[in-house]
């Protein structure tokens, strides 16, 4: 008798709990978001723990949990190794029931996860990785490339530099998928605008000393030294270029991918005058400022980079689609996300193209002089806004098989 009574109570409790949730089709009654990022190496500050903070803020701001959905955000460190990233992605999808992977700086890792996500029919929201191949040859019905890409950077910084007279280039490139893509896309812009590439050198990822490469760049007599690298590689090359008197000698640096955290790390005396392309800056309007304030309180005082903003915006839009569909089926949700115009406090209104490219404006910014900055993190002056329809590679040029 006792056991029967217990089971009845159990059933009643289960029914009561069940009534609170609405997920007819949300797998195991839980939307599980996996932030796969760099937690220990050179991209940690620009993505890393901040991306987890941004994802959690998006879950909170979406209000979805108040409407009966359960959402969980987990994270892991891919150590910038495609094999490590791939095995985490497989483990997450197969065993841990993760529904969507977000962020993933490092294009090598992102391209691997892109393929796995497609095979498993899940969803992948890229914010940290840059390679334009993610919406080109490697585009997938399960991936959206949110924040920026190498084509956009090349077009922004590269285009502006060539137009202002920097027509001979030497590339200092990070020797992996991202660096190669950035170099390729920038070279195309340089050539298209009548410039010339006089040399290039490929440095291994996470190089400490760039002096040897900088000496080669100096010897090339190119007007512009294009830094097709990111994170610690960029800060070290900029710092050492100053040491070797490169800019004083009449050559200029083009930092093709420089994040707000890199400027913070270099300090304005070294970084001033750099021209950078970003799709987000915290000091754009009241909403971005409010976001930055909240964010920095949660991420050790770091102000949000465009990667953090992208994670926030992507997760917010993802949850809207999940709610609209009442499903977390990866392929369906991504299709729904593409059909729905985007609107969020950080990037404003935007769209997502069939190849998975999120479309929004980009900003060509100049790093302030120390005298112009009002305090920590006040680093950029907006020089020009590149409208959304010109900021990214035209749909037809990407060779994405999804585009017919």
């Amino acid at each position, binding site marked *: 008798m006792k056991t029967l009574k217990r089971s009845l109570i159990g059933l009643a409790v289960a029914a009561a709990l069940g009534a609170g949730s609405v997920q007819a089709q949300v797998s195991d009654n839980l939307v599980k978001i996996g932030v796969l990022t760099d937690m220990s190496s050179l991209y940690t*500050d620009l993505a*890393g723990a901040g991306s987890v903070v941004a994802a959690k803020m998006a879950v909170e701001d979406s209000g979805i949990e108040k409407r009966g959905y359960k959402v969980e955000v987990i994270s892991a460190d891919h150590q910038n190794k495609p094999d490590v990233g791939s095995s985490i992605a497989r483990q997450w999808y197969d065993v841990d029931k993760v529904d969507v992977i977000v962020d993933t700086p490092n294009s090598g890792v992102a391209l691997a996860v892109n393929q796995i996500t497609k095979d498993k029919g899940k969803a992948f929201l890229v914010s940290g990785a840059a390679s334009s191949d993610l919406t080109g040859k490697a585009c997938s019905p399960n991936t959206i490339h949110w924040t920026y890409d190498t084509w956009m950077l090349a077009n922004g910084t590269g285009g502006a530099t060539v137009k202002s007279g920097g027509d001979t280039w030497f590339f200092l490139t990070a020797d992996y998928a991202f660096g190669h893509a950035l170099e390729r896309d920038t070279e195309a812009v340089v050539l298209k605008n009548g410039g010339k590439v006089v040399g290039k050198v490929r440095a*291994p990822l996470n190089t400490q000393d760039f002096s040897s490469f900088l000496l080669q760049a100096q010897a090339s007599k190119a007007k512009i030294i294009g830094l097709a690298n990111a994170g610690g590689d960029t800060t070290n090359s900029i710092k050492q270029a100053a040491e070797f008197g490169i800019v004083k000698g009449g050559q200029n640096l083009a930092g093709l991918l420089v994040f707000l955290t890199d400027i913070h790390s270099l300090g304005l005396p070294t970084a001033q005058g750099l021209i950078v392309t970003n799709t987000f800056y915290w000091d754009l309007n009241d909403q971005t400022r409010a976001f930055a304030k909240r964010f920095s309180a949660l991420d050790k005082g770091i102000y949000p980079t465009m990667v953090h903003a992208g994670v926030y915006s992507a997760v917010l839009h993802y949850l809207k689609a999940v709610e609209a569909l009442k499903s977390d089926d990866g392929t369906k949700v991504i299709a729904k996300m593409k059909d729905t115009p985007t609107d969020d406090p950080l990037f404003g209104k935007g769209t997502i193209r069939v190849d998975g490219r999120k479309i929004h404006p980009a900003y060509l910014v100049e790093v302030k002089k120390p005298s112009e900055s009002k305090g920590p993190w006040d680093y950029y002056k907006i020089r020009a806004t590149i409208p959304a329809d010109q900021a990214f590679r035209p749909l037809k040029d990407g060779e994405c098989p999804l585009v017919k």
Partner: protein
Amino acid sequence: MEIFGISTQALFGQLLIGLINGSFYAMLSLGLAVIFGLLNIINFTHGAQYMMGAFCSWFLLTKFGIGYWWALAITPIAIGALGMVIERTMLARLYKLDHLYGLLLTFGLALIIQGLFRNEFGSSGLPYQIPSELSGGVNLGFMFLPKYRAWVIVASLIVCLATWFVIERTKLGAYLRAATENAALVQAMGINVPRMITLTYGFGVGLAALAGVMAAPIYQVNPLMGADMIIVVFAVVVIGGMGSILGSILTGFGLGVVEGLTKVFYPEASNTVIFVVMVIVLLFKPAGLFGREQ
């Protein structure tokens, strides 16, 4: 004139750059060799101690306004003292055991220290400017040599040679070497061997910290700077012959040059070349170039 398509002028520049990078390898591997030679401990915390040296100088500058030159004196003492605490409280318990235990302990410590620093300071690094006396550079005709780099090479040569001299040519050095051969006998002569060993470890750590101070203005002051460096430096020590003082100095500079030349002729392999050299050397001389087979 050209050699393999590179002008001799450019080649001179690259050789010099290689020597400069080699001076960091030499200073770090020297500290490792001293510690291994005298304590039989494979000090994996060396990279973390190098990083702490850089952070200490950053800290002195930003919190107390103490500049580079004083940092050069204060940092090695402070970090060396910290090292001695580690030696007394932890390493001293392991001398009778296999090398492996010392390696595991120091490796674990390195991970903890780096993790704490990364947690506190992030990964993108902190700025540290070159001291004003050494900013700018001179044009050597074949290259622009920043004054600071010239200083690095001179300072590290002096430090390396002085260390070699003390250990190989003075009475104090003779005690140290004798203690590694037969500690009990040396102690019987009335010499306080444990204290000598503690001071030696402190000295080795101080060398790492000194290298860290010298690296701060060139590289970003970064919690990971030691982790990137330590693996290469270990390869240098292994190639030179574990515990060989002169061996680690010469291999340090030599491999800096090899790496520098690789950056010209085949840059993609520049972070692998040292390990290729290591494999070749170990195949033919398992004890390293300057090591003695036991």
